């Protein structure tokens, strides 16, 4: 699987042509569009992003069979990885979820209020779960890792706990997709339904990659650091 992965010498624009979902990854690294013919490495240098981290993130996002091995993990800048994950959380909460929320309100006319209310209630429950999920990471997991990196005395926490309790926040989106496609009765707002569906599909995919990066990149990184401490 090492062959065919994105590399530092490739033109960044080619990555987007290969997988347009990476548009979102770029923006979370703070990279703005309009980078011309620059390579991955050149753009990373310009934005002070470590290119090994950038490459691992884009490769995990695009190639479902690829996960970094230990030789790649040791090269990663964990602080930057946390910055990236934090930026994703902000994007999901402030952009994505509120835009889906708005779109769901458009699906029903006033006389179909019954359906509108069920869907809104379902989604607001989901939103609460996501908020809780992210705030646990923001308030417990990330500060723990940042402290660990600063070689602070260890708090009473272990990344295993995160691994065990990393709750599933993707299933309900698939449920919602099933409901919109199959079970909500047809009405005049088909276009609005289509738009909402596209948005939810994209969000589901992006979120699943985000969780993959947490489980397959962040957790192994932190385990390595923890092991180093324990050996002392």
């Amino acid at each position, binding site marked *: 699987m090492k062959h065919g992965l994105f590399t530092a010498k490739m033109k960044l624009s080619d990555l987007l042509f290969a997988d347009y979902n990476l548009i979102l990854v770029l923006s979370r690294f703070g990279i703005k569009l309009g980078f011309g013919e620059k390579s991955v490495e050149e753009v990373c240098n310009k934005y002070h992003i470590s290119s090994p981290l950038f490459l691992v993130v884009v490769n995990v996002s695009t190639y479902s069979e690829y996960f970094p091995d230990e030789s790649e993990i040791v090269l990663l800048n964990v602080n930057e990885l946390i910055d990236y994950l934090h930026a994703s959380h902000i994007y999901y909460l402030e952009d994505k979820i509120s835009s889906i929320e708005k779109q769901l309100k458009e699906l029903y006319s006033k006389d179909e209020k*019954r*359906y509108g*209310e*069920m*869907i809104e209630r*379902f989604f607001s*429950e*989901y939103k609460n779960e996501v908020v809780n999920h992210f705030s646990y990471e923001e308030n417990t997991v990330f500060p723990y890792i940042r402290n660990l990196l600063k070689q602070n005395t260890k708090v009473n926490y272990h990344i295993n706990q995160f691994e065990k309790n990393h709750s599933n926040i993707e*299933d*309900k989106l*698939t*449920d*919602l997709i*099933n*409901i919109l496609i*199959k*079970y*909500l*009765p047809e009405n005049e707002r088909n276009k609005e339904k289509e738009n909402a569906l596209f948005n939810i599909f994209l969000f589901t995919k992006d979120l699943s990659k985000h969780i993959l990066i947490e489980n397959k990149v962040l957790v192994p990184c932190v385990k390595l650091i923890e092991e180093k401490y324990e050996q002392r």
Partner: protein
Amino acid sequence: MNNDRYYKIIIVEPSPIIAAGLKHLLHESNEFVIAGHMDNIAYLKNRIAALRPDLLIVNPVVIDFDKRFALRSLFQDIPNVAIMALVHNYIDSDILRQYNGVIEIYDTSNTIETKLRNALSSQIDKKEFFENGGDLTEREIDVLIAVAKGLMNKEIADKLNISIHTVISHRKNITRKTGIKSVSGLTVYALINNLITSDEV
């Protein structure tokens, strides 16, 4: 339909004049027997197991407004019984659609008998449709309703007199057929299909 037997009917109608009129019209029939008349739904619920009707004729106004959209949830214990609406004022067509047929106040006795026969056979068709896997089976629907109401597997097993193992396998099949995994997703599914009402959640 078997001609050797007769079908037991219960009427739930608050107006004594209309109930008496309907009884009178069906009096001549040897196919349909009125086994009971009551004016409210609570009384019916107590008597239904003893009377074992084949068909209910219900004026939809006797059912609380917010439950009218979930007729089958109300009569979950008697899934095989056909239910006809008896209508003499305006009732939303979404509500009437759940019934096996609608009897109107100007219908003649012949029309009523035909409608009753159609209702009985449509309920049999419906039952076969469910059992042949068109959608969820009746048992899966029972489990789904219980899940949507927030019951735990153990509670569902006790309520439906089946093992926890069977509950779990029904739940797996429900998810396989609908694609919906979460309890709140299944609740929305049950609401959309009028299997439960929003105040039961």
